[in-house]
């Protein structure tokens, strides 16, 4: 009994620390989950004379991927997105965040363009509306324009198969 109490306390402490170690402190829970996706109207990357607005996507399940040519992790994520775009299971739209237009275009032509289209958020205002604090970040938006899932950091095959695609399937029903 004398040793039991410190032992229990110690095990409790270890459990807390173990949970803490398993968490990524850079993942800040977004308050925007299950809230309407902020609307925006921005010029398209490849054709700045044309605008694109989030409201055009009503009735569709889609991904909004925040990327930039200066972002290293985006490069890591890119092949997964290219692969996903080939399957056609969910349309991917790009939010080109604080980037130079020319850099962004050559980045896409070099690595492949998985996006239906990208919009240029050169001032980063739309990114702030979406609570973006690092690229890449990806939002899954449902038919009613509500954010259902947010991925902070690169999407890998595991996250795609286990989280995003099942949710897309469910939302499309």
């Amino acid at each position, binding site marked *: 009994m004398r040793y039991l109490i410190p032992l229990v306390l110690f095990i409790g402490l270890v459990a807390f620390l173990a949970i803490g170690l398993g968490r990524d*402190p*850079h993942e*800040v*829970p*977004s*308050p*925007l989950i299950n809230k309407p996706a902020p609307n925006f109207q921005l010029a398209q990357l490849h054709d700045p004379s044309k605008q694109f607005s989030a409201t055009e996507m009503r009735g569709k399940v889609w991904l909004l991927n925040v990327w930039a040519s200066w972002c290293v992790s985006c490069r890591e994520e890119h092949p997964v997105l290219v692969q996903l775009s080939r399957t056609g299971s969910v349309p991917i739209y790009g939010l080109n965040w*604080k980037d130079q237009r020319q850099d962004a275009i050559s980045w896409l032509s070099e690595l492949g363009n998985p996006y239906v289209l990208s919009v240029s958020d050169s*001032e*980063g*205002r739309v990114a*702030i*509306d*979406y*609570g*973006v*604090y*690092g690229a890449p970040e990806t939002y899954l938006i449902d038919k009613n324009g509500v954010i259902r899932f947010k991925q902070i950091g690169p999407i890998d095959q595991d996250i795609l198969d286990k989280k995003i695609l099942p949710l897309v399937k469910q939302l499309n029903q």
Partner: protein
Amino acid sequence: MKKVLVILALLLAFPSAIPAQEPDDPKLDERVQVFSEQLRCLVCQNETLADSQAMLAVDLKQQIREQMKAGKTDKEILGYLTDRYGDFVLYRPPVKKKTYLLWFGPFILLAAGLYLLFRYIRSRRSQIHEEPLSAAEHARALELLQKQSGEETI
């Protein structure tokens, strides 16, 4: 060299040719600075927004500045930020159900510690056996004391 002089002369002649940032407003700068000291920079999380030079921090400070200029109150701007980034941006988390443990946990620990300490001290008291002096010991103690005080008076 001549070219440099010409450029320098032109710049001096037309000071507006130097790309000016914002028009100076030290009062507003000060307000942005003080306000953003209570905010966490999301990119480098151990830094305040005020200290951070991360791209996002600069953008956010610009937003704050614009909103202050537009006459928004501090509370409204805080609302704007927490709507987008959650309570995580605040160094001082609001008191609500979810944060009760955070705010009051230390006091609960303190109270529990005091209680345990109190109990321990009391249990120690019961461990001490008070044995009153026997008559002989009492007499001896008295003798010693008197002897000592007798020496002191000399």
